[in-house]
Each structure stands twice: as C-alpha cells, then as structure tokens.
C-alpha cells in the first residue's frame, strides 16, 4: 500500500499544508472592504499612538506611518467591525455611516 504514490499535475501542486509565503502586500484580486456599512474615523489630535487598533484589527487595516507619525486606515479591507473603536483607550475613533461620505462604498456602482 505504501509504495503507491499519487501523481499530481505540476500546475495543481500545493505546498505541504498549503503554507505559502505571506503576501505582505495587498492582493488586488481580493478586495473585501466593500462589505462595510460604517467606518472608523480617527481624530489624529486625540490619538496617543498606543497601537491598540493595530493589534486588535482582525484585517490588519491600521498601520503607523512612521514619517507622519499618524495611524493610517486601509479603506480597501476594513469591513467596519468597529473592534478598533471599542478598543481605543483615547476615544479618538468614531464610527460613521458610509452614507455620510460622497465616495462611501454604498454609493459606488462598482465599489473599488
């Protein structure tokens, strides 16, 4: 039995356990921010750069821009779960409806 080997065509090969190098960058073929009905809006003055939002965001949509020393939000992947708003100790994040934005995802014919 153990001498038997399956033949898998090369183009269908997947690494063991399907473990692949992390994309690190975004995948333009898989934009998921268009599920959102509201978004977190940041008050940069009040932000203490504690990085809670960065740590808690399940979609890695917050990162610290080291040049401007500001937390940057990624509109293409944020699904509006508002975990960051909940976790912000400085109360500098506010949920705001997508309808309030002229280019909010709900207003776009073809989001992104």
């Amino acid at each position, binding site marked *: *039995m*153990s001498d038997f*080997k399956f033949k898998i065509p090369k183009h*269908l*090969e997947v690494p063991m*356990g*399907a473990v692949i190098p992390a*994309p690190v960058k975004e995948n333009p073929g898989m934009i998921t921010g268009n599920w959102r009905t509201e978004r977190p809006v940041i008050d940069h003055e009040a932000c203490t750069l504690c990085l809670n939002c960065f740590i808690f965001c399940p979609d890695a949509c917050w990162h610290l821009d080291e040049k401007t020393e500001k937390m940057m939000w990624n509109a293409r992947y944020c699904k509006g779960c508002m975990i960051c708003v909940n976790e912000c100790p400085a109360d500098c994040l506010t949920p705001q409806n997508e309808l309030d934005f002229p280019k909010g995802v709900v207003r776009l014919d073809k989001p992104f």
Partner: protein
Amino acid sequence: MAKEVFYSGCAAAAYGAKFSRVEVISSYPIRPYTGIMMELSKLVANGDLDAEFVHGEGEHAQVSIAYGASAAGARAYTGSSGVGVTYAMECYSPAAGGRLPCQMAIADRALDPPGDFGSEHTDVMSARDQGWIMGWAETPQEVFDNTIMYYRIGEDPRVMLPQFCCQDGYFVSHIPGKVILPDQKAVDEYLPPYNNPHPLDPTRPVSHGPQIFPDQGPAIDLQRAQAFLDTPKVIAEAVKDFNKQFGRKYSPFVEEYMTDDADIAFFIMGGHARTARFAVNHLRKKGVKAGMVKLRFVRPWPTEAVAEALSKFKAVGTIETSTSYGGAMRGGNLIHEVRASLYDLPKRPAVTSFMAGLGGEVVTLNEFYEMAKILTEAAKSGKVKKGVYWLGFEPD
C-alpha cells in the same frame, strides 16, 4: 531510572504528555477527560513541567489554540470527551489539512441525549474521517505509551498529522493500573524535538490556510491521502523502536490473543479488550476455540494487517462500541471496515457485529459467552444469520 506507579488512564495521559515535553496545553473542562488536565495543571503549577497552560473558552477554541500553537512550532496538547469532541468538529480538518501534528487526548463519553457520562466510542469515531491519526488504548500503560508514540508518528516529516490518542472513559480513564514510567532521557532519545518546517514567524512571514482555487482542492486532498498511505510504515518503525527502547511488546496494528488455533474471534478495541481476554480464557477452558484480535489504530485503518489476522478464522464478531445509525450493517462502524478489508480474500470468515457497551454499559463476561455461541454457530454453518446483534435486546 524507570519506576513503577499506579495511575488512572487520565494520570497516565498527563504523564505521557509531561514525558513528551509538551510546550502548550489548552484545556476546557468536561468529564471524564478533565482528570488529564487536572493532573497537568498540577504539574505546571508545581514547576515540574515547563509549558504554557491556556484555558479555552470552549472546545472549539481549545483545539484552535492547540493547532495554532503547533503552527507556531510548539508541541501542543489538548483533549476532550463526548459532546466536547463534537463541538470542536470544525477545527479537525484545518489542523489535519494544515499538517499540524498536535495531539488530542480523548477519554470517550456517550453523546447526548439526554446526558450520559458513560464511555462510548461514538464521539470521536464521528471525527474519524477528518484526517487525524486515531487509536484506542486498553490500559493506563498503553495510554502513557501511545501518547509518546503518537507524537513520534505524527511529527515524522513523512506524516505531519494530528493525533487522537483515545481511551475508554471511566473503564480506562478512571481505573488505576500499573504504569512503568521510563527514564526521561530514554524518552528524549526516542522522541526528538518537534520541528515545524514552516512555523509562524514574524521574520519569515507565511500564510497558513490560505484560499485556494477549486482545481487545487483535489491536489491538496491527495497530499493528505498520500500522508496516510505513508503513515503505516512510520507506525511500524515507531512501534518497533518503542519496543526496543522501553522493552514493551506492542504489535503495530493488531494484537492477537490466543488466535493460533482459534475458530472464532472477537475483534475489539479499547478497554473492553481486557474483559475479552478473560472471556477467551474461560471459553478455552470449556473447550471453545476462541481468540481475540485487538485493533490499535482506526486511522490509518490497517487493511492488510486486519485481513491477515482475520483470514484464519471461521467466524469473527466485531464488538461495536460506537453507532452508525442507518449504516450498511445497521449497527456499528468497525464491521464496515472489517468486511471491506476481507472482501478481496479468496477465503474469508463469516463476519457479524455485536452492539455492546453503548452508553457506557459494562460488557460482561456473559455477553461475550453469548457472542461466542452465535459465532460458533456461524463457524459451523459458514455464514451469519444477521449482520448485527443488539445483545440483551434481541427478540427470543
């Protein structure tokens, strides 16, 4: 130095984990397996075991923690019983598909309804097709030994699969028996540290469990199937090395008891095998040529070993401690695989099954004598009257 102790199956599993030097343990209480975590938490609290002890908020979280830890490169240990095992069902396939060799100790328990604490194999048998290595132990000593052996098998680079290390709830998990604890150094020689070839590591980022295209689905399933084809060879090696290192006498897949000249045989796994041995002894005294074949691995199913062991009998009865409602034989699970294993043989025994030990009832010696009567009749006539007998519940 090796020393002899008197441990329940739960304590034996905990000490098996300790000797395997597990690094992450995730727990959530449900009896009877809880005894394992009680023992381990003591070992960690007393500083006897250097491991991260994490409390899951349920069994689903518990298994997720274990395979997450395994993905990060730690030897991970968890466990459950009964409905806890089925509650975590979603997590089994990702752990196996991700090829993460964590171990889950199972002290089995009947599923609800309405609520039964007894031992029954159905809980984890429902997860047998998820890609985990799986087998039952008969004694606390075998629980201890299997814990160490399973890590060695599962973490082998040719295998890389998680393992269900099972024991019967109460019958094994809560009845103490003699356990020989080996020298830690001997275990370290037998079981090298776990080496995950692609751990989660911020300096070398990887994605585990990414989205794949449907066309790649069969390819990745074939990989897992291949791993299971390669596993029996690894098991044979691991068991042989274990016997050599610790002076035990395990057969890798099926253990035979008094089978040399036997006409009829009980095919059984787990704690009830102990009763079956006594039954065979008594039957022999009465002149019945009975034997017992004990299954050590349900997954990978040892097709050849089962066929070889059973082909010499005239009649075989599988002792089913799990249910397959509406299945081909209208009873348990083992008979399906036993009959399939024998199908290609030119000469095969008559095979029937006995539903026994469901809900945790004791399988008594009288039940085994009853089975022997049915099997002797089948051996004479060369065929079975029925595919399944619900012993004690049969119409007269």
